[in-house]
């Protein structure tokens, strides 16, 4: 009996078409992910060479420490996780590399990467998209008429008479489709692991488990709808509408709401204030700037207040004021961004599509939080450079005494531990809930 169901399923032309569609789209998405990774890795290599050449060239051209540090850029790299190829997330719009001088940081750290806005708008075609959007469509296509087609063809009565239990028969039919779709998922994941040479680690397992649970959610949802025993047309319309609501309308509405509730005018304030904080000091008495500078860094107090018209100590103190006087706006902006993230995440708990998307970005380290982490690390990195170079500039130390070769790009440290339960629980709850509802509906299924 089970073999017959399998045969019946495989023989359908639609199944073959769906298989080809998902494999072709899946492979395209994996190739796109591979290109994304290789371009990021390529850029990192270029940055490393470029920084070496850039430092060599400038060290040769300038013999004054203050002037040299005006030009020198140092890079901090957040290396993309290989999983980023499966879920590109925010990694395309927010850069993974920061190249900064020791001047005002607030004027440098928000520079975006170069992007084609049309690409950003249409969204990345990564494996995450295939799993989030296409697999549910196939689940809908394969399950919507499981019960109704038998009724519409008049075979249901036969089954009711011949099969041991109509319910078992129905579950068997679903399981054939589930086995098929899960094996297609496994095929795509295997291709991804091979093509991208993904390391098999905790993050990859998290990605796989989330994918499995996400598909389970859709199976449970479709099964619940078909247990209402309505017509095929009703089922397909309901399920497709649900798909539109879950994958387009609801997440998009939440996005509208978040964007409207939390606009970020602080970003523009930071941008203007960091300029004014620095530039206005040119027209002020040096004492004012130096006093503020020494209040921030008492350890340099002994350098006093310079008397020449121009002096590097004063210059970098002015640059420092760009950061110091915009700090409240920049903190407010950071807080606003994190608030957006918190609100989105809480709402997403109730919506498996959104939750899974954010989950994928988390394990691939391509989320907004990861970008905020890079910004925070940039701040620490920049401060370390400043504290290293400030005394050398103020003492006008000889450029040749510095070991410039040691200034190679730095990498930010690795991931935090994953919180499995917070990640998986919302999906598990959704699956269990829908299963209970389906079982309740199934009780009422009689043979006719």
């Amino acid at each position, binding site marked *: 009996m089970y073999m017959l169901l399998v045969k019946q399923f495989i023989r359908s032309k639609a199944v073959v078409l769906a298989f080809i569609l998902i494999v072709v*789209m899946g492979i*395209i998405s994996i190739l796109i992910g591979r*290109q994304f990774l290789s*371009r990021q890795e390529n*850029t990192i290599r270029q*940055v490393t060479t*470029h920084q070496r050449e850039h430092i060599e060239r400038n060290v040769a*051209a300038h013999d004054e420490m203050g002037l040299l540090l005006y030009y020198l850029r140092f890079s901090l790299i957040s290396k993309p996780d290989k999983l980023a190829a499966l879920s590109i*997330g*925010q990694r395309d*719009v*927010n*850069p993974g*590399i920061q*190249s900064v001088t020791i001047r005002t940081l607030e*004027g440098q750290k*928000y*520079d*975006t*990467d*170069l992007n*084609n806005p*049309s*690409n*950003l*708008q*249409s969204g*990345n075609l990564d494996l995450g998209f295939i799993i989030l959007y296409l697999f549910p469509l196939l689940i809908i296509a394969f399950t919507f008429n499981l019960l109704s087609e038998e009724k519409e063809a008049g075979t249901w009565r036969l089954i009711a008479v011949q099969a041991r239990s109509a319910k078992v028969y129905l579950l068997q039919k679903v399981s054939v489709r589930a086995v098929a779709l899960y094996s297609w998922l496994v095929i795509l994941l295997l291709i991804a692991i091979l093509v991208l040479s993904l390391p098999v680690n905790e993050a990859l397992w998290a990605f796989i488990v989330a994918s499995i649970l996400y598909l389970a959610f859709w199976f449970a949802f479709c099964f619940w709808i078909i247990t209402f025993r309505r017509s095929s*047309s009703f089922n*397909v*319309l309901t399920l*497709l*509408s649900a798909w*539109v609501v879950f994958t*387009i*309308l609801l*997440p998009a*509405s939440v*996005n509208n*709401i*978040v*964007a*409207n509730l939390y606009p970020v*005018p602080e*970003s523009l304030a930071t*941008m*203007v204030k960091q300029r004014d904080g620095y*530039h206005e000091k*040119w*027209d002020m008495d040096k004492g004012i700037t130096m006093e503020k500078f020494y209040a921030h860094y008492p350890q340099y107090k002994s350098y006093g207040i310079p*008397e020449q*018209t*121009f002096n590097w100590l004063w210059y970098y103190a002015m640059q420092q004021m760009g950061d110091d006087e915009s700090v409240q706006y920049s903190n407010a902006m950071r807080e606003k961004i994190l608030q*957006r*993230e918190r609100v989105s995440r809480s709402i997403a708990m109730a919506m498996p*599509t959104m939750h899974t*998307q*954010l989950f994928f*970005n988390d394990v691939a380290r391509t989320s*907004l939080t990861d970008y905020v982490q890079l910004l925070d690390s940039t701040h620490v990195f920049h401060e370390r450079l400043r504290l290293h170079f400030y005394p050398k500039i103020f003492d006008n130390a000889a450029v040749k005494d510095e070991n410039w070769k040691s200034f190679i790009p730095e990498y930010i440290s690795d991931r935090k531990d994953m919180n499995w339960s917070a990640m998986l629980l919302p999906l598990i709850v959704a699956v269990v809930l829908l299963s209970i509802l389906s079982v309740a509906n199934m009780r009422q299924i009689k043979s006719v």
Partner: protein
Amino acid sequence: MTNKRISFLIARQFCRSAFRSNALYAILLVMAVMIGFAAYSGWKIYTTQNAIRQHYQHEVRASWENNPDKHPHRMAHFGSFAFRAKHPLSMFDFGLESFVGNAVYLEAHRQNTVNFSEAGFSTGLLRFGEISLAVLLQVVLPLIIFFLGFASVSEEREGGTLKILLTQNVSWRDILVGKSLGIFLLAMCIAIPAVAVTLFLILGTAQNVLITDTLLRFAGIAGVYLIFIAVLCVITVLISAASASSKSALMKLLAIWLFMIVLLPRTTQALGSYFYPSPSKIEFDTAVELDVLKEGDSHNPDDPHYKTLRDSVLRVYRVDSVQQLPFNYSGFVMREGERISAEIFRRHLDKLIATYKKQNRINELTAWINPYAAVRNISMALSATDFESYVVFQQEAERYRYQLAQTMNELQMKFISNQKQGPDDKPYTISHEHWKALPDFKPQQATIGTALRHEAGSVLALVMWSILSVLFLIRLSKKAKAV
């Protein structure tokens, strides 16, 4: 010949029976809520963002003008900012609005990136899309049209009423036209409120200077969506008539919707960027830097380019040192340096934009096989939220930056002494009266004509789609079968 009266009767009958089902009321209710929500979001984002940006645009102008006497080159470094103003029609179609930067720092020697896009602050949910009036009309309404019309003809065939109609001297053409018209009228119950609310919003918020152009753009948008909806209604009826059963018609229409709206646009755009890779910011900056160094380093006194320049200037003015020149020489050198670096940057930026356009090309071409793509492109162009509008902003900001830097260099040439200063001298300054002479940043919106010229291909494709749907309707009315 089409019998108009009979077609109208069929349309009326179709609408009447649709209004008898509860599903239609549910759809209309949901859509009314969605239209209200989309309109509110659009209005809110437009007014909030424009208020914020105008506030800062005025603030930075005031702080520019209020600078005290200083050296013009300090002013060139002080610089200014350009904030991207939103077009009133962005309330209707968000287009690329959330994916492009909103503010850029304009200073001498350096072309900064346009930063702080909504996408940069987004949590990844933005990739699911946004709810705008345009999205409702482009994405959701087609689905509703298909839902309302999939059974329009096939049901009559299944119920046997089709044969009766045909025997009563009603032609196939009357039936197809009548049913299309019926669906169209139902679709209008959703489209007209969406368009009307747009008109209401733009009349309520638009500035007077732009109102004629904005209204023309609005009329264009209304027309385009009208045609799009009509084409979809005809396609729906044709597929219903040509399918063996209502169920198979529904399956076909849903497959078309998925292909047309979900799969094709994303895939073609992704393939575009796959085949035409564009450089990252670091690659781009490095390439620009190398080209500028090749031309000459204005800060290096021994640079061959600037040495030759100095020698030729000295020759022309018949003097033997730059101090004897009638203008400030370092201002002159900086003007030359700015000209060269801006030109190199522009060349690289043009190349980058050309690459982006190549990436977008595949998607644009699909307008010929996908009416949705055509409407999407035209709608964004008319709402001034398309790629072209962004490029125009970027170019205007850069032009203003260049003007600012060169005005300051010229002030330096004219008013700053050529004599070198000692380390303890008070720096040269000029009067703050000069700052006001630099005009404010006033971006010009492209007119509807320019917008449409860029989308000529999509407009033609839409025309083709309307002609094709009429031709198919005529063809099918000759070949269709009653059973």
